[in-house]
C-alpha cells in the first residue's frame, strides 16, 4: 500500500493512503472523540463529534470519514474544534433522557464518557422532548428510544452485518427515531434476538431484558436446589466487567463468585457441548451413510435457528435435530442428575449464564420441556451475572474454587472451544474422525476453521469418507453461504453457523466494549484466545474421551442417537412468517 505523510497537531505521521484522519490520529496516539463511528460497522460521519481542522479546508471535517492526503495538516485541538464538539454534544444532550443514575449503562456509556472528557458542566439548551414508550415485549431486547442518540450503529449492525434488517430510522427531523416498522415491537417482527444491536449501542437505548430478579428470588428460596450452568464463552469475557484485560480466562473467579452468590451447584455447559458432539457427530455420519439430508447444519445458536425459520425454511430439514448444549444440559439435569442426586426435578431451578440474548427466547420455546419440566428456568447474560456479582459486593479477584461441581464436572477442550466461531466444527471433527469412524488421528487442531474470516472451509479425509465442511459466523455470512448452497455452487456435508460475528465470545450478551476500544482491536480473536489456551492445557481435548460423557452413555442413554437420547436431547423446528398480517 502506498504511504502518505501528513502532520497531526504538528506531529509527522506516515500512514497508508486509504486511511482516514481518525485512523492516522490513532496511529499517532492522538485521541479524537467519536460517537457514531464504529470501525467496519458504522462509518457514516453522522454525529460530527470527531471534527478537526484541516489546513486549507473551508469548514471543519469529520475525521472518521475524511481521507488522508500527502502533506495534509490536521489540527485536532483548536478553540474552534473544541467549541464545535461541545455544541454538538450539548445539542445531543439537550433532548437526551439524562437519567444516568438509573441507567443500565451508567459507568459504561460512550455519551457519558464524552460529557466527562469534554468538561461539560452546564447544559445550556433544554430541547423539546416527548416521552416515547419503552418497547419491552421482546424476551431478549429492550428498546428505550428516549436514550437513543441516533448514531445508527444498531441499524448498520442489524441491516448490513446480520442482514436481518428489522430496525431502521423512521420519520424525520426532531421526530426521527430508530424503530421497527409501523411502531411494532421487536417481538412482532422477525428479529432473531441476537442482541448484536445492544453490543454496538453506545448508550442505554438498547439493553437485554433483565431477568436477574427471578434469579435472586430463586436463590432466596430454600425449597429450591438452584443450579448455575455456564457457557464456555463466559469465562473468556466476564473478567472485562471487573477490570481484567480482554482475553483473560477467569474460570475460577467465576465459579467462586457463583458459589458466593449462593448457587447450590455450578456446572459447566461444556459438558453438554461434549454431549452435543456425540449426538451431532452420530447424526452426521448417519446422514452421510444413509443418504440423509445434507449438508447437516449445526443448531447450537438460537439466533441462527430463528433466522433460518424466518428466512430459509427450505433448510429446516438440514438443521441438526440436536438441541443446543444449554437445552440438552437442562434436560439432563432434570432427569439423570435429579435421579442421581435424589432431588425432585420440580425443585431444581436451573439458571444458565449465557453470552447470548437469544437464549432467553430459546428457553421459552414451548417444545423445550421433554423431561416434563422446562429444560432451563432462566437464562441470563454475562452482563447480568456481572451486575449480580457487583450488587452482592463479591470480591471477583477471589479464585478459590477451581473446579466445577461433580457429577457433571468434566469437560473436554472440545467443549471449551464451542464458544468461538469454528469451535463446534473443530470439536465435531475431532470426535467424528476418531470414534465414529474408527480412525485414530494425530491431528487435533483444525486451524483452517479457526480465526475470524467470515466464511471458512475445510476438507477432512477420514477412513471411508471425505468430509467437506464450512463455517459461517454472523448472519450476513450465513446468508451468503446458504445462497451458494441453494444455487448449487457449493456442496458441503457439514456447516457450522453461529448468529453472532465471532461466535459466542462476541455474543449479544457479552460485556460491551466501547468503540474507542473495539474499533482498534480484533475483539473476537482476543477473547477466543482465552478458549484456545484453555483447550490446549486441558488433559482431555476430545468430547468422546470425557469420562462424564462415557458414564452418561453407559448408565443412562445407552448410545448416541438412542431412543432416550432422542427424547431428551433432540428437537424440531417451525417455519415462521416474517410479517404476519
Amino acid at each position, binding site marked *: 500500500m502506498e504511504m502518505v505523510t501528513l502532520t497531526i497537531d504538528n506531529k509527522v505521521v506516515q500512514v497508508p493512503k486509504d486511511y482516514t484522519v481518525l485512523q492516522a490520529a490513532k496511529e499517532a496516539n492522538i485521541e479524537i472523540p467519536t460517537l457514531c463511528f464504529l470501525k467496519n460497522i458504522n462509518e457514516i460521519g453522522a454525529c460530527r463529534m470527531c471534527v478537526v481542522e484541516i489546513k486549507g479546508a473551508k469548514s471543519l471535517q469529520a475525521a472518521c470519514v475524511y481521507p488522508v492526503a500527502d502533506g495534509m495538516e490536521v489540527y485536532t485541538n483548536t478553540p474552534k474544534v473544541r467549541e464545535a464538539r461541545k455544541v454538538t454534544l450539548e445539542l445531543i444532550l439537550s433532548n437526551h433522557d439524562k437519567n444516568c443514575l438509573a441507567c443500565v449503562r451508567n459507568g459504561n456509556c460512550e455519551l457519558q464518557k464524552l460529557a466527562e472528557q469534554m468538561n461539560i458542566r452546564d447544559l445550556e439548551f433544554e430541547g423539546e422532548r416527548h416521552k416515547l414508550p419503552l418497547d419491552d415485549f421482546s424476551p431478549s431486547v429492550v428498546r428505550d428510544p428516549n436514550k437513543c442518540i441516533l448514531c445508527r450503529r444498531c441499524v448498520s449492525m442489524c*441491516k448490513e452485518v446480520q442482514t436481518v434488517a428489522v430496525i*431502521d430510522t*423512521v420519520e*424525520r427531523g426532531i421526530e426521527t427515531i430508530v424503530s*421497527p416498522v409501523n411502531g411494532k415491537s421487536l417481538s412482532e417482527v422477525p428479529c432473531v434476538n441476537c442482541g448484536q444491536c445492544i453490543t454496538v449501542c453506545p448508550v442505554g437505548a438498547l439493553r437485554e431484558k433483565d431477568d436477574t430478579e427471578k434469579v435472586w428470588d430463586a436463590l432466596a428460596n430454600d425449597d429450591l436446589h438452584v443450579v448455575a450452568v455456564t457457557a464456555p464463552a463466559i469465562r473468556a469475557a466476564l473478567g472485562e466487567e471487573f477490570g481484567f484485560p480482554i482475553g483473560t480466562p477467569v474460570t475460577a473467579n467465576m465459579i467462586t463468585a457463583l458459589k458466593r452468590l449462593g448457587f447450590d451447584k455450578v456446572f459447566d455447559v461444556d459438558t453438554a457441548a461434549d454431549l452435543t458432539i456425540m449426538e451431532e457427530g452420530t447424526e452426521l455420519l448417519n446422514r452421510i451413510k444413509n443418504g440423509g439430508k445434507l449438508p447437516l447444519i449445526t443448531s447450537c445458536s438460537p439466533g441462527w435457528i430463528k433466522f433460518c425459520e424466518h428466512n430459509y425454511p427450505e433448510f429446516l430439514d438440514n438443521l441438526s435435530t440436536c438441541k443446543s448444549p444449554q437445552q440438552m444440559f437442562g434436560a439432563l439435569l432434570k432427569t439423570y442428575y435429579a435421579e442421581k442426586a435424589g432431588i425432585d426435578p420440580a425443585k431444581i431451578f436451573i439458571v444458565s449464564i449465557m453470552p447470548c440474548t437469544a437464549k432467553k427466547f430459546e428457553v421459552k420455546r414451548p417444545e423445550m420441556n421433554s423431561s416434563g419440566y422446562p429444560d432451563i428456568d432462566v437464562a441470563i447474560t454475562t452482563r447480568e451475572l456481572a451486575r449480580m456479582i457487583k450488587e452482592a459486593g463479591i470480591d471477583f479477584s477471589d479464585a478459590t474454587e477451581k473446579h466445577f461441581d461433580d457429577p457433571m464436572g468434566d469437560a473436554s477442550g472440545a467443549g471449551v472451544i464451542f464458544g468461538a466461531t469454528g469451535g463446534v466444527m473443530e470439536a465435531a471433527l475431532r470426535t467424528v474422525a476418531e470414534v465414529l469412524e474408527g480412525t485414530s488421528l494425530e491431528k487435533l487442531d483444525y486451524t483452517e476453521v479457526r480465526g475470524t474470516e467470515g466464511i471458512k472451509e475445510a476438507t477432512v479425509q477420514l477412513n471411508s469418507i471425505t468430509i467437506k465442511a464450512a463455517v459461517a459466523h454472523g448472519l450476513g455470512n450465513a446468508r451468503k453461504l446458504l445462497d451458494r448452497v441453494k444455487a448449487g455452487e457449493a456442496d458441503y456435508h457439514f456447516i457450522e453457523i453461529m448468529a453472532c460475528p465471532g461466535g459466542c465470545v462476541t455474543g449479544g450478551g457479552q460485556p460491551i466494549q466501547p468503540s474507542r476500544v473495539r474499533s482498534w482491536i480484533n475483539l473476537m480473536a482476543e477473547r477466543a484466545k482465552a478458549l484456545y489456551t484453555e483447550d490446549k492445557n486441558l488433559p482431555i481435548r476430545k468430547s468422546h474421551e470425557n469420562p462424564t460423557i462415557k458414564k452418561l452413555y453407559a448408565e443412562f442413554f445407552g448410545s448416541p442417537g438412542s431412543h432416550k437420547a432422542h427424547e431428551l436431547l433432540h428437537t424440531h423446528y417451525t417455519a415462521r412468517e416474517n*410479517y404476519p398480517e
Partner: protein
Amino acid sequence: MSKCSCGQEVKDTREEKLEEIIAKYRGTKGALIPVLHEAQELYGYLPFDVQRKISEELNIPLAEIYGVITFYTQFSLVPKGEYRIQVCLGTACYVKGAGHILDKFKEILGIDVGGCTEDGKFSLDACRCVGACGLAPVVMINDTVYGRLKPTEVEGIIEKYRNE
C-alpha cells in the same frame, strides 16, 4: 386484499397493476421511490400489505421501506379522504393561530391529525410551511388555498364540501 375501505367486496384489479409497476422498475437503481409513488397513486395511500409486497418483490427490507415512507411527507400510511385538508403549521401560520383552526377541524370532523372520516370524504393533516405566509393562517383543501382563516369559518367550509 379484496376489501376496499368502504367495506364492500370488490374484485381488486389493483394487485395486478401493482405487479406491473414493480416489474417496470425491477432491477433499476433507485427503484423504490418511483414504485412507492405509483403505488400510492394506485391505492391513495400505502397500506401495509402493499409495503410488504414491494419489500418482497424488490428485495428491500420492510423496515427500510417504512423508513423511506415516513421520511417523505408525500407518502401516506393512511387512506386519504376525497377532500384532503392540510392545515399549515409553519411558524407564521402557527403564530397566527393555526393551532386553533386545526382544533376546530378535529372537533367538527371527529378525527385526529392523520385520520380520515368514516365516509372517506375528509382527511386531515398538519403540514409544514406551504409558502403562503402572507395569507397566514393557511389551509389547503385539495388544491384550493384558504387564507387568513378564522376558526369560526371552518364549519361553513366543511359544509360546502359535504354538500358537493
